[in-house]
């Protein structure tokens, strides 16, 4: 028989251990997160803040810092190459984002069925994404060498040749965009495949019974139900276009921003200012503005699409 006193005592005891157990859980939680939290703070958080600080300083050749206020920002305003970089960045994004969307979705639809054949095809479409960007840049540069590169010869044979893929300021950025698409499309294909998987088959079956053709099914079922995926894809590809490593690596290796600054996206121009001319303060100021612009664009996109939560009939 258990007395009330005993029960109360046990409950008190249990209560006490639960309290200390709770604190132990807290401490364990903090300790487990600590290494990553500290690392992310030092190597991501602090640099973000430091970027703003650096942007109001000027660094001389000996590593001495002097406060210059808004001078770097004024210099930016008056620097035609900064504006050129902003324009090239915007152009690159405006071409890359829709192309990636179409190619990613197109490939996903092409290999959507799950069978052996499509599994192999998916891997082939994805393979370029596994190759380093330096290699990607070198291989493409080799293929578009003026007149004798294999693609230059092919386009010449098709009667659309005669121009220089990387030497002509009118084509260089387009070439860079196409190489970027080739490298990135497999990744977006995977994201779209994930989205397509989540669409219930019954919708298509019902539509087929109602006599909807392939185009109608795509337009009224696939596209609307892919809206969350589309949101994610556009968001991520936009960030990749403006600040992604793929743009930097490809451009740095293939053209270094040339010819005539036609491919000088801001992240390349920032890098050259910092590590070519030692203008750390100026580079940090441009990077800060780039981040702010990117935040405004993504926030606008987020607001316009209500965070990807579109209303649709279930």
């Amino acid at each position, binding site marked *: 028989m258990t007395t009330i006193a005993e029960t109360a005592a046990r409950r008190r005891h249990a209560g006490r251990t639960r309290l200390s157990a709770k604190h132990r859980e807290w401490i364990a939680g903090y300790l487990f997160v600590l290494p990553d939290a500290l690392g992310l703070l030092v190597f991501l958080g*602090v640099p*973000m803040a430091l970027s703003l600080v650096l942007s109001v300083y000027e660094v001389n050749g000996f590593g001495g810092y002097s406060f210059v206020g808004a001078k770097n920002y004024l210099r930016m305003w008056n620097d035609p190459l900064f504006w050129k970089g902003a324009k090239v960045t915007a152009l690159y994004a405006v071409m890359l984002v829709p192309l990636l969307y179409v190619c990613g979705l197109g490939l996903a639809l092409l290999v959507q069925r799950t069978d052996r054949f499509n599994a192999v095809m998916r891997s082939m479409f994805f393979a370029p994404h596994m190759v*380093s960007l330096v290699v990607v840049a070198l*291989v493409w540069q*080799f293929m578009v060498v003026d007149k004798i590169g294999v693609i230059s010869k092919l386009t010449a044979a098709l009667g659309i040749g005669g121009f220089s893929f990387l030497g002509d300021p009118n084509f260089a950025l387009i070439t860079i965009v196409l190489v970027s698409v080739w490298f990135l499309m497999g990744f977006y294909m995977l*994201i779209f495949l994930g989205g397509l998987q*989540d669409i219930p088959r019954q919708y298509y079956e019902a539509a*087929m019974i109602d006599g909807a053709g392939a185009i109608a099914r795509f337009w009224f079922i696939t596209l609307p139900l892919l809206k969350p995926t589309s949101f994610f894809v556009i968001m991520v590809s936009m960030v990749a276009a403006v600040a992604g490593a793929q743009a930097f690596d490809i451009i740095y290796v293939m053209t270094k921003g040339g010819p005539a600054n036609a491919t000088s996206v801001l992240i390349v121009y920032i890098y050259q200012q*910092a590590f070519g001319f030692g203008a750390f303060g100026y580079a940090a100021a441009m*990077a800060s503005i780039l981040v702010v612009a990117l935040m405004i664009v993504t926030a606008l996109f987020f607001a316009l699409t209500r965070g990807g939560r579109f209303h649709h009939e279930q």
Partner: protein
Amino acid sequence: MSSKRPQPYFSRSQVTLVRGLWMVVTAILAFMTLFPLLWMVSIAFKPAAESFSSNLIPQSPTLDNFIYVLTGVPFIRYMVNSFFVSATVTIVALFFHTMAGYALARLRFPGREVMFLSIFSTFLVSLPVIIVPLFVIVKAMGMLNSYAGLIIPAIFNAFGIFLLRQYYLSLPKEIEEAARIDGAGYWRIYWSVILPLSRPIMSALAILFFLANWNSFLWPLTITSDPNLWVVQLGIANFKSQYSASWNYMMAASTIVAIPTLILFVIFQRQIMDSLKTSGLK
């Protein structure tokens, strides 16, 4: 009247025809996608005189390009550097990220959600936009031109933490209970219950981390000027400025750098593609 009866079914031969055409188109596109890589390998086996000939299969295949790249330049040294850096980053990152992912998913403590959201928000921060201040910090820490400088900043990224947290959230609650009844502390639970259960996702992440580091260019370019510390990506990029006309050497070097990643991909394609697919939405 049923004059507008839907006809969702096609005859057998029609279906076969459409599917056959579909497969042909897919295969042609896939071949076009792979073509640049095949071309790279092809040139790597061609003698210099044949570099710009239009045939995919070399007429007189040779290993000279590979031999030159592996002996004429310290390419093996670059590969060893790359391997050492990538492997170290991968091991340490997996260790730290599983710890953080476990705590963020399965332990309760004040500030957990705030912490998770701040980690999550660093998703949008890419290296090119913080390269200048990051360089300043790493230089101030005395890690310029050192393995530590190559390795330590590369360890921390939100992607791995995020994927592991999602994975741990999906595990059933009961798994820790038996251990807890036995009086195991949190470290024991993490080490002998959670880690063994994470093997599938850890192998996928290990491959992704290794590849990402093997392929990374911008950070090594910024942090190392000493050729003894160069990783392969710097090696081939520099190769280009030295031998700008020797495409056969460059393609051989590119092949050597790309082949390990492609082999890893062929072996682990399922895991790699599945883990990237879930990164999108879940």
